[in-house]
């Protein structure tokens, strides 16, 4: 039977290299997906993830066993991505709360599906390209919140702690990001589907 994360964390704490390797193998894909969604560069995403696992290795002794390992890991990944984006010239201002919070469009979520089966994103490269391009059009602050929630499943409180802002700001950013994604995907669907 496969050991669970808790057992692997215990092993890694005792210096069991195989246990640490298994933690990496188990979580690297999702951690990388999160980093890729946030920093939008495969090499940067790889660097960030490697750094995150090194931090895990270094600090595993301080990890509280009651918490979920993957939540801890994804918060480390998210924090490193945010640091990375802040360091990049031109992205600093977009993390400013007032600007990122601002949503000139007061409308809500459209009661329409985009018409794309989510499973199609696994196999359809063209659709994936459009989704990633749409993500890229979001500001780093909006993209970060969307990825943290959708891919990592972080709670509003965890996201607020990670981004050092209020839960209200997180909710607003998330709402804006989802709405923009929906609008862009609906527009793509319309453009890709010839009129009857």
């Amino acid at each position: 039977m496969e050991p669970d994360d808790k057992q692997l964390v215990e092993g890694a704490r005792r210096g069991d290299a195989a246990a640490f390797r298994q933690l990496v193998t188990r979580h690297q894909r999702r951690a990388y997906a999160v980093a890729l969604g946030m920093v939008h560069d495969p090499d940067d995403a790889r660097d960030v993830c490697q750094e995150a696992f090194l931090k895990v290795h270094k600090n595993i002794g301080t990890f509280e066993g009651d918490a979920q390992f993957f939540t801890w890991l994804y918060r480390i990944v998210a924090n490193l991505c945010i640091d990375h984006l802040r360091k990049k010239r031109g992205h600093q201002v977009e993390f400013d709360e007032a600007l990122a919070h601002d949503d000139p469009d007061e409308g809500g979520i459209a009661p329409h599906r985009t018409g794309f089966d989510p499973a199609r994103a696994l196999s359809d490269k063209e659709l994936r390209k459009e989704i990633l391009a749409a993500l890229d059009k979001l500001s780093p602050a909006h993209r970060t919140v969307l990825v943290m929630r959708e891919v990592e499943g972080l709670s509003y409180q965890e996201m607020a702690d990670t981004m050092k802002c209020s839960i209200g700001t997180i909710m607003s950013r998330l709402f804006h990001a989802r709405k923009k994604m929906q609008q862009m995907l609906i527009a793509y669907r319309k453009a890709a589907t010839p009129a009857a």
Partner: protein
Amino acid sequence: MGKAEDERLQRYFDGEMPASERAEIEAALTEDDQLKLAALGEVRGLVTNALLAEAGEIDLLPGIEARLRGGGTGAGKAESKARRRWGLGAHPASWSSGFLAAAAAVLLLVFQPWHSAHAQNGCDIESLDTYGAVVTVFRIGDTPHKSDETTTVIFTEEDD
């Protein structure tokens, strides 16, 4: 329905409200609300699946282990930064012969093997070995007669 109501629906979608409030929302869900919830679910599925598919079968272990062995000196980081700096792909297989030629040219300029101070036997060899691809520059010549020297560049690409 405005933004405030939709943000409440979003909190419901994300499981970020107490059970009593959930029950209240569920009792009053309209057809539009249900469509909006489906739309939110669709965006979640599309974003997650797209990123997971892009991640593919990523293998971070070699880089992590290299950095651990190097005492956190950034060996793995240096690896991907070097690739970026030289315009290399994620894998040596994606290297072009153009890069190898450029590397050789740099070697020739930097090391100038034909001017080597320790060329006692008339043969200088300089080699750059990175990620399984080797560029070797060597010169064989007749020391007393500089005009007879020959410089040769060899490219070798090795499988992983």
